[in-house]
C-alpha cells in the first residue's frame, strides 16, 4: 500500500505574507516556479474500510487500523441529549489519573485509573459554551462565550445584561467530587478557547491567553469594552489578545492585565503577496490557480498553542497563522504571519517536539458542516505543515487531510490533536469530528502520511430526498471527535455526542511495538494540549530500539549492522549492573563509528546518545 497520501503546496492559491514584527513592514517571498499538482492527495478508492459504516449513536459501525477502542463512556445524564450544540462535549485537560471534559453545558471529571472503566467523579451543570477546560494544580479554567451564559450558570438565558458572563470561569477542583466556582474573569470578547502560559520564573503565577472570537460587549455591560475598526487604537477591544494573570494561591485575584496587540499591521487585503515555491522546487504548471490573494486581517485567534520551553506560540488566527515570541508573556511579539487562501479558518496548531515545525489546522465551515465529502477539495479543511527557519520565519509545506471521504451526514473537518511521543519521529493524533480519529506522521513536512485511524459511522441515518429535489440531513446531529490527545500511554478522544473514548495504539507496518512502548514511557503529571510540554525520553531500551526499528524501516543503516545491534541490545538487557553498563558503553562506541557509514547518520547519532544515556543510568 502507499502510505504517502499527501499534497504538495502546488496548484492551489497560496499567498505568503511575512510581517516584520512591530515595524509593520511586509516583505514578500520571492516569486518562484510553482510545483505541479502531481502527487496530489486523493481520496481512497472504494476499499477504504471507513466507507459505508452503518449509522447509529452507540451502535454505529466501526473501522479501525493501528488503534483499538479500550472503552467508551457515555455522556453523563445531564448532558445526554442531542440538540444542536447545546449539550455537546468539547475539549479535554489531564492531571494525574483525572480527565476533565468540557461540555457546552458544563463539564465533567473522570477518574481513568482503569482506562477500561472510567469512573465519573462529578458533573457540573453550567451553560458555558464552549467550555474548553485547562487544569493547573487545583484550578480548572473554563472558556465561556456566547450571549446566553449567566454568571450564576443558570439556564434560561440572559434577561439582565448584568447577569451575562463571557470570559474564563475558574473552579477550585481540589475535591474532584465537588468542584467549586471561585471566580468569573470577564473579558470583552469572551473566551472561545484559552491557553495556559507559565510565568517564566514564578511558579505561583500563570497567564491565561484568551482567544475570543466574538465582538466586544457593549461598554454598558462591561466597562472598558469598545468595538472599533482601527487595530492600532489602544482603546479598541477587538484587535487584541486578552491576557489574564492568575496568582495560583489567590485565584479570586485573577484579572485581565493586558490586551496584546499582536494583530497590528496585518493588512486585511495586502496589495501584493508573494508566491511560495512548491515542495522540492519542482517547476510547475497551473499558475493561473496560484492567485496572488491574501485573506483579511484577523482580530482574534481561534486558538493559540504555546510551547513555553521554546518561548514560542503558534497562533491560529482566522485568516493567518502567527508565530509569536512569548518569552515575556505580558508582552508577546509577533515574529511572522502566514496566509493561505485555501485556509478559511486557521484553527489550531501543534509544534514538533524540536520546535522546527508547526502543523496548523483549517476549520473550514466551523466544524458543523460535512466538509470531508469526496466533492470537497483536499487542501481545504485539513492541515498544513509550516517549518520555522533559524530566522524564526515560516515556510509552508504539504497539506494533509483525512484521506477518507465521509458522508453528508458527518460533520467533518480538521480539528484538535497532540503529539504522540515516539522518539525520532514527528507523530500526532488528531480528531476530525465525525471523520473520526487518526494518527499522522509529519516527520517529513513535505510528505505527511496516515499511520492509523478509528472511525464510526454517522450518528444520523442516510439522506432522504425532498420532493423539491433538494436533499437534506435527517436530523443534523453534530458529533464526532472534538479533540484526540495522547496522555500517558493512551489516546483520549472527546466525542461530542457519544461520550469519552479511550484508544490504544497497536503495532503496524508504520509503527513498531518498541516505538509505542517508548511513547508510553513519557509520563506527565498534568497536560493541557494547547500548552505544549517539551518531551524528554527516559534512558530505556525501548527508546534505543525505536531508533533501531526506524533504521531498519528506512534502510538508514545496513542490515548486517542493525541485526548485530539488535543482538547486542538483547545481550545487554540480559545482563545487570556493571556488566550491562559495560556492554552498553561498548555498543555506544561502535555506534559512534557507524555514524560515518550510515545513510541516516543523524538517527544513528541519536541512537548512540540514547545508548550512552542508558549506560550512564545503569548502576
Amino acid at each position, binding site marked *: 500500500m502507499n502510505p504517502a497520501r499527501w499534497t504538495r503546496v502546488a496548484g492551489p492559491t497560496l499567498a505568503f505574507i511575512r510581517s516584520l514584527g512591530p515595524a509593520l513592514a511586509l516583505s514578500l517571498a520571492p516569486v518562484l516556479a510553482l510545483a505541479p499538482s502531481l502527487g496530489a492527495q486523493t481520496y481512497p478508492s472504494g476499499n477504504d474500510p471507513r466507507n459505508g459504516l452503518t449509522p447509529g449513536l452507540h451502535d454505529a459501525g466501526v473501522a479501525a487500523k493501528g488503534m483499538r477502542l479500550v472503552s467508551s463512556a457515555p455522556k453523563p445524564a445531564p448532558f445526554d441529549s442531542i440538540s444542536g450544540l447545546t449539550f455537546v462535549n468539547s475539549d479535554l485537560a489531564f492531571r494525574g489519573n483525572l480527565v476533565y471534559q468540557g461540555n457546552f453545558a458544563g463539564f465533567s471529571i473522570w477518574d481513568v485509573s482503569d482506562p477500561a472503566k472510567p469512573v465519573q467523579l462529578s458533573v457540573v451543570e453550567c451553560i458555558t459554551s464552549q467550555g474548553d477546560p485547562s487544569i493547573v494544580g487545583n484550578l480548572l479554567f473554563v472558556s465561556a462565550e456566547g450571549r446566553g451564559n449567566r454568571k450564576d450558570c443558570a439556564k434560561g438565558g440572559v434577561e439582565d445584561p448584568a447577569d451575562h458572563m463571557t470570559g474564563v470561569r475558574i473552579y477550585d477542583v481540589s475535591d474532584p467530587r465537588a468542584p467549586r466556582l471561585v471566580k468569573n474573569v470577564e473579558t470583552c470578547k469572551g473566551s472561545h478557547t484559552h491557553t495556559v502560559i507559565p510565568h517564566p520564573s514564578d511558579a505561583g503565577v500563570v497567564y491565561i491567553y484568551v482567544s475570543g472570537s466574538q465582538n466586544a460587549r457593549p461598554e454598558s455591560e462591561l466597562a472598558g469594552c469598545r468595538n472599533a475598526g482601527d487595530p492600532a487604537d489602544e482603546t479598541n477591544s477587538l484587535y487584541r489578545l486578552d491576557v489574564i494573570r492568575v496568582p495560583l494561591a489567590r485565584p479570586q485575584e485573577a484579572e485581565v492585565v493586558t490586551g496584546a496587540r499582536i494583530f497590528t499591521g496585518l493588512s486585511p487585503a495586502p496589495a501584493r503577496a508573494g508566491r511560495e515555491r512548491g515542495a522540492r522546487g519542482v517547476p510547475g504548471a497551473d499558475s493561473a490557480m496560484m492567485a496572488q490573494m491574501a485573506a483579511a486581517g484577523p482580530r482574534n485567534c481561534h486558538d493559540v498553542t504555546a510551547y513555553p520551553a521554546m518561548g514560542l506560540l503558534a497562533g491560529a488566527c482566522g485568516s493567518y497563522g502567527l508565530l509569536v515570541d512569548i518569552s515575556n508573556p505580558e508582552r508577546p511579539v509577533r515574529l511572522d504571519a502566514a496566509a493561505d487562501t485555501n485556509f478559511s479558518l486557521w484553527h489550531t496548531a501543534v509544534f514538533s517536539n524540536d520546535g522546527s515545525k508547526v502543523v496548523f489546522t483549517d476549520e473550514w465551515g466551523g466544524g458543523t458542516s*460535512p466538509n470531508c465529502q469526496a466533492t470537497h477539495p483536499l487542501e481545504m479543511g485539513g492541515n498544513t505543515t509550516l517549518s520555522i527557519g533559524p530566522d524564526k520565519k515560516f515556510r509552508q509545506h504539504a497539506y494533509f487531510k483525512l484521506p477518507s471521504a465521509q458522508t453528508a451526514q458527518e460533520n467533518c473537518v480538521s480539528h484538535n490533536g497532540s503529539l504522540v511521543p515516539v522518539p525520532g519521529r514527528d507523530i500526532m493524533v488528531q480528531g476530525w469530528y465525525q471523520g473520526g480519529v487518526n494518527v499522522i506522521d509529519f516527520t517529513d513536512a513535505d510528505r505527511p502520511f496516515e499511520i492509523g485511524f478509528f472511525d464510526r459511522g454517522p450518528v444520523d441515518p442516510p439522506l432522504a430526498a425532498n420532493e423539491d429535489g433538494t436533499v437534506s440531513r435527517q436530523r443534523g446531529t453534530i458529533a464526532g471527535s472534538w479533540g484526540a490527545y495522547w496522555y500517558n500511554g493512551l489516546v483520549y478522544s472527546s466525542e461530542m455526542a457519544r461520550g469519552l473514548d479511550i484508544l490504544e495504539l497497536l503495532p503496524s507496518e508504520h509503527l513498531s511495538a518498541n516505538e509505542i512502548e517508548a511513547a508510553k514511557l513519557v509520563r506527565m503529571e498534568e497536560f493541557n494540549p494547547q500548552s505544549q510540554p517539551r518531551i524528554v525520553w527516559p534512558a530505556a531500551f525501548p527508546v534505543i530500539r525505536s531508533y533501531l526499528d526506524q533504521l531498519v524501516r528506512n534502510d538508514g543503516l545496513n542490515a548486517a549492522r542493525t541485526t548485530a545491534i539488535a543482538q547486542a541490545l538483547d545481550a545487554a538487557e540480559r545482563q545487570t549492573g556493571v556488566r550491562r553498563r559495560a556492554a552498553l558503553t561498548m555498543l555506544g562506541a561502535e555506534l559512534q563509528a557507524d555514524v560515518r557509514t550510515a545513510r541516516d547518520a543523524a538517527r544513528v547519532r541519536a541512537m548512540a546518545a540514547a545508548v550512552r544515556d542508558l549506560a550512564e543510568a545503569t548502576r
Partner: protein
Amino acid sequence: MAHHHHGAESAPITIPPGALFTEADVRFMQGMIAHHAQAIHMSRMAEAREASPRLVRFAQKIDLSQAGEIALMQDWLRAHGQFAPDTSSWRTMTMHGMLTAEELARLEAARGASFDRLFLQYMIRHHEGALQMVADLLANPRAAQDVDVSVLANDIETTQTAEIGLMRQMLDEP
C-alpha cells in the same frame, strides 16, 4: 415536504413559551437561507461564463461552504418547529445586499474578465449584506442566545469578513 413558492417573511412565527430563541433568530435563519441560496446561484454561474480559474475555485468554495450552512439552518428551523425555506427561496425573499433581477441578468450576460469583475463587485456587496444581517441580529440583546444561532452567526461573520478581503484583493489585481 410541499413546494414553497412564497417568501417566509409573511409566515407567522410562534415561539414556544420558555424557548431560548426569539422571533429575530427564526427570521435570521430563514432570511440567511435565502441569502446563501442566491450566493450559491451566483457562484454556480462562474464556470460556464469563462471566469478565471481562481474565481471559479473561489466560487466553488462559496458554494460548498454556504450549502453546508443552509443544511444547518434548515435542520435548526425544523428541529425548533419552524418553517424552513428551501434553496429556491432567494427568488421570493429579499435580504440585505441581494441582487435584483436586473443585476442578476447583467451578471448572467457577462463573460470572462467582465464576469469576474461584476461577480466580485456583487459578491462583496452580497457578503456585506450578510454582515449587516448578523449585526442586525446581534443588536437585539435577547437574540442569538441559542448557541447554534450564535455560533452560526459568528462563523458567517468570520468567514465572510475574510472573503470580502480576498475579493477586494482580486478586484485590485485582476
